[in-house]
């Protein structure tokens, strides 16, 4: 996911500096050792054929060598320090949206803390900050302070803040955060906001899954503000050369991948992520699961991993990997998938919406020949033709001292015009929750953006679909689907049936509910 890469880079920047500074003390060690040799013997003279070196000369020599060594070490350390900094400077784009000056809070203004993730590029984060500034400017009685969280440790920070009784008033997070917070009694029920949105027609404009997902356990713990969508990108030119139609079903996808797979030419039929411990890996399988009519849990909220539909999806993925992917697939994340596609080493690639801008920028020739496959029809039929679109929420915390003001802020942020500004900041990285925004200029820039925006609002659902009774369990699986099911199966270390059966047994405790 883009946000994950971005946050990893961010963590690197900070980690590098502190790590280097804390470790440079050790450089003194070899220098100190040089002093230990002062006064040693030099061969050729003296009582036993050795002549004692003049101690003052030796010490002076050592001091000179010491300072030379120190300079060298310092040079190496500085170069090591500068290298990634220079790299970053070249790599970073100039933000297209510049942050506006923040507004000073009025004396009697209610203070709100808003924490959100590092969702993308500096441009996007500047746009998010600008929205907050705009809110502060237009609502002088409320002042919101925005704090950016890193993907590396956001959950630890939020949980620590909750534990110490000082959580934010409102936050974003991963696509299951509102459920997890609700399970801990930390999410404010915003049903009254939903009632207002229903009354003013907002919900009618919102895609079904954007709001149905948060109808949980008699409350509404959050609301979706953006989708993060996945798609199949394909090379039109290669398909055309092979005389193939654009695949619309699983069988056609398999046939196309087989026909286009050409290891001698260095082209994989399809590129997908498969690395263990990565959130990227299970997203391809979950796309297939949804299209097979399966899911993680049943309507009662019980874990249903070991189901015939899920097995069919897993067997299909295994067959695709065996026939038509690069051999290194079990170590690939979306980064490797994207690179392979951009370098012409994959005919079809499963990736995220951010692929569009990246391909356009880094491989313009391939971009001209790239299309997005229509939503595939699998064993689940037309009704199950879905893509994975993570519905990422905003939520208000139960401990807030200003629930009404927090709702005012949330309602304002959710206004289509304000969301549109965010979507425009980084085309392709965030997908609309309002159907009316599909026609926004940002999604008309090219046919890939138009297609994926359409697929998102018409077919986008996520892991909590088709029901969310098991919401908390699904949100606390981490990378279990990858680690227990997908990676062991595609590497050939587990049979699909065994992997699903074991996963069912291992993950069941996460799906306990109070009444059981």
């Amino acid at each position, binding site marked *: 996911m883009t946000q994950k890469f971005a946050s990893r880079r961010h963590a*690197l920047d900070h*980690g*590098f500096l502190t*790590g*280097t500074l804390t470790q*440079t003390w*050790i450089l003194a*060690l*070899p220098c100190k*050792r040089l002093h*230990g*040799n002062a006064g*040693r*013997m030099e061969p050729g003279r003296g009582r*036993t054929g*050795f002549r004692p070196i003049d101690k003052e000369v030796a010490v002076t020599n050592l001091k000179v*060598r010491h300072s030379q*060594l120190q300079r*060298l070490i310092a040079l*190496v350390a500085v170069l*090591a320090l500068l290298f*990634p900094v220079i790299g970053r400077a070249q790599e970073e784009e100039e933000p297209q949206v510049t942050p506006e000056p923040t507004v000073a809070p009025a004396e009697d203004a209610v203070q709100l803390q808003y924490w959100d993730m590092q969702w993308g590029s500096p441009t996007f984060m500047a746009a998010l900050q600008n929205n907050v500034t705009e809110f502060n400017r237009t609502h002088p009685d409320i002042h919101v302070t925005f704090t950016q969280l890193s993907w590396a440790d956001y*959950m630890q920070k939020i*949980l620590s803040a909750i534990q110490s009784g000082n959580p934010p008033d409102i936050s974003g997070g991963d696509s299951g955060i509102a459920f*997890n917070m609700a*399970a*801990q009694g930390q999410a404010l029920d915003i049903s009254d906001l939903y009632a207002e949105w229903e009354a003013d027609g907002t919900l009618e404009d919102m895609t079904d899954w954007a709001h149905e997902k948060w109808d949980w356990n008699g409350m509404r713990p959050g609301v979706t503000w953006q989708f993060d969508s996945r798609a199949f990108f394909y090379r039109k030119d290669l398909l055309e050369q092979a005389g193939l139609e654009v695949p619309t079903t699983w069988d056609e996808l398999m046939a196309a991948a087989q026909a286009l797979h050409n*290891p*001698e030419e*260095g082209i994989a039929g399809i590129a997908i992520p*498969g*690395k*263990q*411990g*990565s959130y990227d890996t299970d997203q391809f399988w979950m796309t297939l699961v949804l299209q097979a009519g399966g899911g993680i849990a049943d309507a009662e909220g019980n874990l249903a991993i070991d189901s015939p539909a899920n097995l069919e999806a897993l067997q299909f993925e295994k067959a695709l990997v065996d026939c038509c992917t*690069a*051999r*290194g697939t*079990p*170590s*690939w994340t979306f980064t*490797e998938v994207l*690179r392979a596609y951009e*370098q012409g*080493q994959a005919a079809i690639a499963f990736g995220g919406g951010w692929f569009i801008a990246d391909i356009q920028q880094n491989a313009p020739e391939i971009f001209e020949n790239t299309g997005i496959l229509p939503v595939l029809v699998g064993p689940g039929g037309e009704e199950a033709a879905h893509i994975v679109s993570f519905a990422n929420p905003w939520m208000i915390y139960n401990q807030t001292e200003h629930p009404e003001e927090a709702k005012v802020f949330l309602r304002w942020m959710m206004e289509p015009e304000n969301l549109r500004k965010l979507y425009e900041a980084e085309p392709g990285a965030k997908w609309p929750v309002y159907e009316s925004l599909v026609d926004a200029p940002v999604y008309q820039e090219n046919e890939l953006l138009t297609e994926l925006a359409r697929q998102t609002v018409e077919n986008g659902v996520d892991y909590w679909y088709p029901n969310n009774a098991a919401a*908390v369990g699904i949100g*606390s*699986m*981490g*990378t*279990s689907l990858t*680690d227990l099911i997908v*990676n*062991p199966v595609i*590497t050939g*270390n*587990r049979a699909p049936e065994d992997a699903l059966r074991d996963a069912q047994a291992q993950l069941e*405790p*996460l799906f*306990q509910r109070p009444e059981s």
Partner: protein
Amino acid sequence: MQHATTLSQPSASAESSRARLRAHFSKYALPYLLILPSLLFLAAIEFYPLGVGISEAFKYHNRVQPWATRFVGFGNFIQALQSHDVRQALRTSFVMVTGIVGFSYLLGLLAGLLLNQKVRGRSIYRALILVPWIAPPIMAYISWQWMLNDQLGTINRTLMAIGLVDPFDPIIWLADPALAMLSVIVVGTWFRFPFMMITVLAALSAIPDELHEAAALDGATAMQRFRDVTFPLILPVSIIAILLQAIWTFNDFALTFVLTGGGPANATTPLILMAYREAFQRFNIGYGTALAVISLVLMLALGSVYLRLQARQEADS
């Protein structure tokens, strides 16, 4: 009478030990008072969290199932020790520690011996060899991950360019269980051997040159001088360095987390990574803490060996 005597003896003894204790505290009241703030600070940031952590290991505690939290005694430990995955993770940890510490010591020893010679540009080499250790681990591991990429990595590209690898059949360094473990050991060794080199260099420079000269005069060959003079003298320091490295390597979470994610098929998942996944991805604090406590006990065993050796060295010196 006998009965009365046996009762009064312990009572008198207890009284006298209490008196000694009182005398001790009245004599050393000021030092105790002075170290009290440090003790309180340590208790707050070390002992209290450790105590809470250990108590968590005896509970079923999942952050998102607060209603299910309960005391389960040794249940988490029994579950862990019966788990095939935990046993595999322990094996993986053992292989990693043995491989990385073993190779990094050998490489460090070799580099130390070479750089202890009077060679031109020795200072430059010493500084350059330190670079892996200067680099922040996460950055180093991510760089290695890219270099080991099967299709686009520098290593395969170089091997392809010189004709050692078929471009259509690249080496899958991180996607094959055995090669992934080898990669982890190579990267771990690269990162850790400078520490070994520094330690060996320090020990080598403490050896008086006269010993080598005397041995040489006695007709000892270079190999004999290393075996009978150099190695025995650097051995105590080496053992301590090896123990420290073993503890650090066992607890090195970032190496496999970044490089392989613990895969493929759990082939490179050490115990510490498994504990992280349980506690912070599945929110299973109780079980994750139990795994961490198992790790702690194993490290305490190594730590106690280290302390004993250090105490012996201090006594010898």
